[in-house]
């Protein structure tokens, strides 16, 4: 706030306070016209022919009003209210926020503290912890991965046993802490349009999907020269690199011909944001345990 506005606020505030005080004290008694008959029981105020009796209000009513004025004055001395004057109470909204945050952290620590050094597998056995984990998941992860963690187009399914980077507790924690940068480089310029088409048929054939056998045989040659570096000899993927398994009929970007061609031709980049600066350590552990437990759910026929 510039000095002008600061002064502006101070003057307005104090002038209003003074005005209210004056109005109150000026109206605490009323002058009686001696010319009027001595029996006159009104204040002399007439509004639309309605006269006001001079019945007094209780004294404490007046004192309450005075108390509010005293309170305002005291408030303006202690708290920031007068322009740039910060008040003598050293109160700031940031300070209040930090104080309540510290309080909240303390309370969270009571709840989450006991999971800090517990192994993830053990946390996954505790129904209480899983409930908390599922709530944290719903608030932070479900937006991309879906409420059931079943994934979406471009977002991995966390409920199956196919893992891009590995499904051990350590790997899940690593993914959560640091995030992941998924990168499939564009192969269109490398293998040419025909190579893209042939490789696509080969990938379809690996998953037992409908494909052109002749093209797939050509595609296998392409695969063995270019793709296997990341996806492996048997096309089972490589969890060190986050290269997906191409044989399990589980798809991050769709399984139809056009989608696969698109993936090979233009590549895909993907990003799991790092959570270590967003979520507290103990919350991350709870979510990790929850995610770890998801693959243990079972389908039930109805």
């Amino acid at each position: 706030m510039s000095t002008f506005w600061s002064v502006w606020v101070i003057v307005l505030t104090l002038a209003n306070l003074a005005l209210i005080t004056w109005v109150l004290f000026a109206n605490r008694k009323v002058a009686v016209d001696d010319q009027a008959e001595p029996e006159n029981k009104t204040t002399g105020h007439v509004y639309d022919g309605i006269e006001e009796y001079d019945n007094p209000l209780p004294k404490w009513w007046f004192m309450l009003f005075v108390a509010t004025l005293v309170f305002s004055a005291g408030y303006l001395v202690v708290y920031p209210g007068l322009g740039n004057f910060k008040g003598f109470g050293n109160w700031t909204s940031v300070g209040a926020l930090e104080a309540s945050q510290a309080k909240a952290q303390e309370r969270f620590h009571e709840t989450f503290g006991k999971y800090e050094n517990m192994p993830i597998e053990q946390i996954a056995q505790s129904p209480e912890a899983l409930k908390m984990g599922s709530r944290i998941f719903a608030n932070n992860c479900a937006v991309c991965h879906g409420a059931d963690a079943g994934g979406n187009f471009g977002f991995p399914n966390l409920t199956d046993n196919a893992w891009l980077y590995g499904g051990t507790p350590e790997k899940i924690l690593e993914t959560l802490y640091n995030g992941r940068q998924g990168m499939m480089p564009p192969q269109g310029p490398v293998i040419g349009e025909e190579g893209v088409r042939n490789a696509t048929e080969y990938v379809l054939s690996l998953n037992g999907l409908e494909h052109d056998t002749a093209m797939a045989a050509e595609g296998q040659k392409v695969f063995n020269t270019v793709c296997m570096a990341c996806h492996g000899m048997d096309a089972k993927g490589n969890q060190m690199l986050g290269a997906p398994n191409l044989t399990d009929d589980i798809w991050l970007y769709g399984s139809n011909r056009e989608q696969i061609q698109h993936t090979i031709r233009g590549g895909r980049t993907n990003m799991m944001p790092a959570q270590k600066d967003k979520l507290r350590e103990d919350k991350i552990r709870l979510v990790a345990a929850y995610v770890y437990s998801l693959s243990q759910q079972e389908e039930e026929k109805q």
Partner: protein
Amino acid sequence: MSDLIPTREEQEGDGEVRYRMLYESEDKVYIRHIKGVFTRVRKYTGLPLLLAFFFLPWINIDGRQSVFFDLPTRQFHIFWTTFGPQDGFLLGWLLIIAAFALFAVTTLLGRVWCGFTCPQTVWTMMFIWAERVCEGDRNKRMKLDKAPWNLEKVLRKGGTHTIWLLISLATALAFVGYFYGVRELVVDLATFNAHPQGVFWVAFFTFATYMNAGFLREQVCKYMCPYARFQSVMYDEDTLAVYYDAKRGETRGPRKKNVDYKAEGMGDCIDCYWCVQVCPVDIDIRDGMQYECINCGLCVDACNSVMDKMGYEQGLIRFTSEDELQGGKTRFLRPRLFGYALILVAMTGLFAQQVMTRSPIEAEITRDRGARMFRESQGQVQNVYTVKINNMDQAPHEFTIKVEGKPEYDYSIRKPKTIYLVPGEMFSVPIRVSVPRDQLKDTKHDIEIVVQAVDNPELVDKHRTVFIGPKQ
């Protein structure tokens, strides 16, 4: 309006201008003790409520305090049921019903709530009883207040205030006990283990009760209570209220016992001022109806006892209606009352039905707000729902979730292994419902999600939602 409150005037300067002060300290009201019908009636109306207030928390039902407002967990335990935040509308209706009951009673009998059952009146009367026990009746109290301080005055006043503080403390303990648990509160306070907030509120309500019933008293009714302001709207010419029968009473004045006063043009009122001296709100009922009057009937008792002494007929001041005073008859049955009665019966019935049929479990279904309506994977079409289960029962339950849809589809459902909710817990469970892609013939069809307690199949809640698949 003949007797207005006398106002202080002050002279300024040479007496040119006179001022009237518009704020005055209220004069203390000294109530003369009186026995009579309405004093007895008050005992039997206010007392049960008072006893209920003090002793309800001490009664346990199902091993829990019978009325317990558990704010931290946001559960209100009232007798055999537990209400949660989602039952707020029930509270709203209860208050509306109470308001209409009040309107009906006021239409019929005027401000009897104020005079007979309002806590403000009941506590004030208790405090006045304490004054009478320690300091004596009206005249003695006035004398004592004027007297200089000496040992007797200290003892008498001390006694009064001790009793006041004890009543206030009991009130505060009972009140805070509704929120804290009264047994725990008393034990915690006695052993100095109470939560500081509990201690603060006990102190606060002790102080508030002491100030309110000790010093504010009728000023609450006169200046603060909103009900006093709009009661006049509910009165009509057949409302029973305390009236002074001016036809019979005037011309008032003192008289000798054996003189034929009627021949001298006198009325029945002997101007003894008892009706004014017993009035808790410090008005003279003989000026006609005033907004301060709370229909407590004390002046009726007082006047009747004087009439008895004089050998006159009772009822110079009585509960009657404007109609009757003007020579008509009070019509109790009138359209307004029928309207109130009808509304009250309807609302109470609906309310009772709502409370009786409350299911202690409640489920809500939300479709997952993903980028897509459905997911296709492994030859299945999948829809995801979040089932929010609220266990409002007194016992913990394990729940199952089932899906009921079209018989020709093979539904499968994926959900957490165990869904276990303690009493009062609310939990959101994500579930995935799948139908084989090659079976599905609808782009969109209705299904029902059934939430059921494993140990008690009666606790069940069904919700209709939709299953969406690819365009056919």
